[in-house]
């Protein structure tokens, strides 16, 4: 089995959709997560607060720097992620497609984890 990180990227400059649009989306994401749990696929999932809430920590030999985040200001940012465990990339992509169909037009990045035991 392999583990994959499914990252949901969303635009930084547009406000989140109003509740009447967002609520059904969140409900469907929740249903998908339930399906993933039932299939024994879901390892972890979480949505993130906006990048403006981030703090960056960086050490140099001289000092420990703590700055207001985010680390990278981008046109898009990581909005949330899931970690799934499946047999291969095709299965990971199949779940990613289901997620993409719910969050319509947002990009889902699928990345394999290193060194997961067989």
């Amino acid at each position, binding site marked *: 089995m392999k583990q994959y990180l499914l990252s949901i990227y969303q635009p930084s400059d547009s406000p989140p959709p109003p509740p009447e649009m967002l609520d059904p989306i969140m409900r469907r994401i929740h249903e998908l997560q339930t399906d993933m749990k039932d299939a024994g696929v879901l390892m972890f999932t979480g949505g993130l607060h906006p990048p403006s809430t981030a703090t960056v920590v960086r050490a140099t030999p001289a000092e420990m720097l703590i700055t207001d985040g985010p680390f990278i200001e981008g046109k898009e940012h990581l909005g949330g992620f899931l970690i799934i465990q499946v047999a291969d*990339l*095709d299965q*990971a992509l199949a779940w990613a497609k289901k997620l993409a169909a719910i969050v319509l037009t947002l990009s889902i990045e699928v990345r394999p984890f290193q060194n997961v035991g067989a």
Partner: protein
Amino acid sequence: MNSVARASIEKIFREEYGRAVAVLTRKCGNIDDAQEAVQDAFAEALQRWAANGLPPSPRGWIVTTAIHRAIDRHRREATREQRYSFAAADTHDSIELDEESAVRDDQLRLMFTCCHPSLGTSAQVALTLRLIGGLETAEIAHAFLVPEATIAQRVVRAKAKIRDAGVPYRVPQPADLGERLNAVLAVIYLIYSEGYKASAGEQLTRASVSTEAMRLGRTLLELLPNEAEVLGLLALMLLNESRRETRVNAVGELVLLADQDRNRWNHTLIAEGLLLIEECRRRNRWGPYQLQAAIAAEHMRAADAAATDWSAIKAYYDQLMALAPTPIVAMNRAVAIAEVDGPTEALGVLDQHPLPSFYLFHAIRADFLQRCGRAQDAVAAYDEAICLADNAVERDFLKRKRARLL
């Protein structure tokens, strides 16, 4: 026994490479080990065949020997973590050659892996030519006019992604087969086109990529005989190929289809292409490649340009627009409309789907304008086309057309 020249051994290995790597990838569980094993078999063939002559079945010998060498390597490296999956292949004697159907599945699996949608197009092309076609990276680089290091890096990266991202070595599920097959067809046609668009100076060196693409098409048809679009793609390549020699004249100038010497078309290729189209017609499951091939077939069937059945061609373009409505298809459909309904009608249709950065769009537009009697507008359109043309042969052709208007 007759000794065998190195060149003949190389030729046989080139032809058998994709098949052997496909089988070995299943046996070894990864592409790198499979390639290494086939390379080992090649080194052994260079010694044995050169001394003792060809074995009764070179094809079987290559796979069997590669499996032996893979097992040898596995034994030498057995202390390392388990990397192979030779479950039953314990001794050399226990190796039995696989059923031909299993080998076919291996070849299909490797094709679908090379053309996996998670790989970029340039990686799909390089990987397909390297692993299925058995071309060396230097040959691929030469054909695509890029540095060898670029191709080598693409192949290495693509193989690393297949390994690390867990791209499965599998024929897609029936639900995904159509879409995934389209990717394979697109890669083969891209390879073909790369060799076809080569200008006069590079004709000889790059035509070989087209030959390779047709070989891939034939292999794919053997593997998936029921897929009508595979028939269509092969027919399209054969029919295009039949005109290769006549597309450019003795002084390297572009010759339009209407002006080509039809006696010099390759009639063996045309006959084969037309036969494939008849089969497509019989199956009646038209797709974009079949329709494009059917359009080419209409051109090839005509005794001369004037005898071309443009109504039939327009009808095929109508179908193509319904299935794959791209601006390029719309543009080519306008050309058929010009012949059937006249240039004024065609100009209106053409302008509905503008392709402002494509030289051919402006060249076709110029031609329509000229036929409408708008010489000045035609000159301006040729100017646009000349600016955008991407090789010297095309540019010279357009300049000559433009000069005739002044």
